[in-house]
């Protein structure tokens, strides 16, 4: 009896510790860093919504143009019109947040449909799905976005839509791999034998019970890319339009003064982009190693 209890504790101890034991300490550090960045983003969003900004983002101080960080009253310096950088950095999150979520929704929905069709139903749809994803993969994203911008109008929602569609092949490929692996498992076969409808097997037993961490990882990895591409488009002048600040157009405005030696007003937003994107990348990768156990080194 005692022996039995002892085994119980060891097993439960093991299962409690295992996820931390199995993963590298570095992966845990990545995840922690990524979560900190994620929390900062959420905080910035709330601050921007409720207007709890440390300074008025529109107020211009012409005697304090292009100041570096630590200028009196301006923690991160000012831009070329003497506007404080910090509240503008925070305001950007509001412009990014909803389009970013839409992008993730489009990518996962479309990629999910493709992945389910080719992974679960196999041969019947595989050719069609491969054909469509190959077509999408043929376009350089930025060029496709420029085409859409030229045909319609420069709008962040259009851009995020294109980004979502172009990211769908990747998501579809991953989901397909996962589903066709799970399809062989006994629990799916027994579910089919029990006469459970396909939709319930796919959504509940495969996607929800076995793929949700995977989808979250994909979403975080995609988020970093979305920020980079959006800022690149803002730099080119087609992303978030003036006077709404975006990290891309803040860097671009600062860069006009860069050759005169005024480094700070473009460096600060560029650093914001870098740390955030790095946060999303590391979070995605760390979670991947932690939950999926990709690396057994």
């Amino acid at each position, binding site marked *: 009896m005692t022996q039995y209890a002892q085994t119980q504790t060891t097993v439960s101890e093991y299962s409690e510790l295992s996820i931390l034991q199995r993963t590298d300490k570095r992966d845990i550090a990545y995840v922690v860093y990524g979560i900190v960045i994620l929390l900062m983003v959420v905080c910035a969003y709330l601050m921007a919504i409720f207007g709890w900004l440390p300074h008025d983002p529109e107020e211009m101080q012409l005697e304090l143009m292009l100041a570096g960080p630590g200028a009196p009253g301006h923690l991160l310096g000012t831009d070329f019109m003497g506007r404080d950088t910090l509240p503008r950095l925070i305001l950007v999150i509001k412009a990014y947040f909803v389009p970013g979520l839409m992008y993730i929704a489009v990518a996962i929905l479309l990629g999910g449909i493709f992945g389910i069709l080719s992974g679960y139903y196999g041969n019947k749809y595989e050719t069609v799905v491969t054909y469509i994803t190959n077509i999408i993969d043929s376009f350089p994203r930025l060029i496709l976005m420029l085409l859409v911008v030229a*045909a319609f109008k420069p709008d962040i929602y259009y851009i995020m839509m294109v980004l979502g569609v172009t990211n769908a092949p990747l998501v579809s490929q991953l989901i397909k791999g996962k589903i066709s692996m799970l399809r062989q498992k006994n629990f799916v076969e027994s579910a089919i034998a029990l006469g459970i409808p396909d939709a319930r097997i796919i959504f509940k037993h495969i996607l929800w019970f076995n793929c949700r961490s995977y989808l979250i990882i994909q979403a975080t990895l995609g988020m970093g890319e979305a920020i980079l591409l959006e800022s690149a488009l803002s730099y080119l002048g087609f992303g978030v339009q003036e006077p709404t600040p975006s990290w891309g157009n803040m860097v671009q405005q600062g860069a006009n003064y860069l050759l005169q030696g005024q480094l700070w007003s473009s460096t600060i937003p*560029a650093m914001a982009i870098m740390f955030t994107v790095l946060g999303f990348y590391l979070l995605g990768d760390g979670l991947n190693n932690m939950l999926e156990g990709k690396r057994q080194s």
Partner: protein
Amino acid sequence: MMVSRSAKPVVLYLTRELYVTFFLLIGVSLVVFAVLYSAPGDPLAAVFGGQVLSDAQREEMMRNLGISNTWYGQYWSWLVKLFNGDFGTSLRSGQPVLGEVTKLAKNTFYLTFGAMFFSLMIALPIAIYLAKRGTDRLGWVLMMFAYTTSAVPLFWSAYIVIYIYTRFFNTLPIGLATGESMNFTQMMLPVFMLGLGSGIISETVRFLRDEISRVFSEDYVRTARAKGVSVWKHALTEALIIPVSEMIASKIPFVIGGAIIVEQIFNWPGIGRMAWQAAQDRDYPVIMCITLVTALIVRLTSLLQKTLYVIVNPRASQETKTS
């Protein structure tokens, strides 16, 4: 598909790939057409000075100009024009688009493939180191370096490099478009920046690391090692040539995308800068042509990769997959 015994399987495989590429290009043209077709604005009204046309007038005019009523009719005539090399004329310059684009495509080609080469030169040693040694301290630093290159916005790092260059050499490394003479360093700077900043290094490192360590744990590599012969000689094809060519084929669209930004900053006369200008002017024949040309480049690279794959790995032609 019926496989005849007389033809070589490699030839059959490549023929099928050619078919697939052809149909994919048709699909690509359909997507481009769909975007342009659904764009707002009325070209017919624009021809007649922006007056609002009634349905009867419109019908009349379309018949006179020989424009089809249906979308597939319009698509077909558009496609026939494309096959005859008529991509329309630029709204801005009035010149035929295709000539201008092919003239500049050469420069973008140098930039893109040079950058690809640089990226691989950086990513390969890191991947091999990580595959052989795992993430020790130096490996971790290299890995973080690879991540950081993918996270820094390219347009900012390019500006910083230009700034540093001007401080040291007192000249700007830009101006190929204006016909100024440029030395080798000035020519290489954009290529190097695109290679470093197009964001493909971290993914390349991860992919190659996983592939190399997977291949190196296979039985035949262990046998080779036990026999004392060179491991790389045996594993070269599977661990290096195939994954690297796959990586090049799948990442070329990203590098072309980054080329838009680099060409913009370094004043490099290529189709990326042209695409930007066209999007600014809403000069859609130009951007349509550039989209089609870049998609063609991507598909041809992919075809080349498949050819290489089937040459170094003849077994692949036996696979009866339906893609």
